């Protein structure tokens, strides 16, 4: 995933730039890392207090907050397209990671998990796709 982030970040008008890969890649990697923390630490820790019963929605809200934090940490050099991509990546990663905690509780049912996965996975996939388009598009 991190390798993909650096490759995507290097793509630009000069075909591929190693310095852009490092500079821009760091911002997107931060969004990925914060999204992962939101989904794997924040959601399980705050499970009863986060809104909605579906785990992917709990992950979505935590990922949104951490994604916004990543854009603030990223500095002023980021353009709106890049900020949107960072938030979307954080949301997708957090939502997917949170969804994987359904197996760690004593109250989730397989039918319920399957239902939320059928709703959550297309959203997460769409967010990743939008991240790629926005992030690469922002370089041009």
């Amino acid at each position: 995933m991190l390798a993909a982030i650096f490759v995507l970040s290097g793509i630009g008008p000069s075909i591929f730039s190693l310095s852009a890969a490092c500079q821009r890649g760091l911002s997107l990697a931060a969004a990925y890392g914060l999204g992962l923390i939101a989904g794997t630490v924040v959601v399980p820790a705050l499970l009863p207090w986060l809104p909605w019963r579906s785990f992917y929605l709990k992950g979505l809200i935590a990922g949104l907050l951490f994604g916004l934090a990543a854009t603030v940490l990223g500095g002023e050099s980021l353009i709106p397209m890049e900020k949107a991509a960072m938030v979307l990546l954080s949301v997708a990663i957090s939502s997917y990671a949170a969804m994987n905690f359904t197996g760690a509780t004593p109250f989730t049912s397989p039918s319920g998990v399957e239902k939320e996965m059928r709703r959550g996975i297309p959203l997460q996939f769409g967010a990743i796709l939008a991240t790629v388009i926005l992030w690469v598009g922002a370089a041009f």
Partner: protein
Amino acid sequence: MKKFRYLAGVSTLELDVQACVGCGMCATVCPHQVFELQVKKAGIVDLDGCMECGACATNCPVGAIRVHPGVGCASYIIKKWLYGKDAAIECC
């Protein structure tokens, strides 16, 4: 545990009241108090509390309960979608 609720209207749990002998085993083994013994027959009082663990169906002496049991685990369900039910190992 009553405060921990999951999605409503999804459980596959079914009770055949005609076949029920009123032994109360389902009410005893259910971890979420889904069943209650009502006038010598079991009744489902909290369907949305069901986590489809299958303990009730396993312990019913007359097979009056039907449910598709399993673990509510996203990772397992993904493996089931990708590799089929037999290839996926229940991981959690």
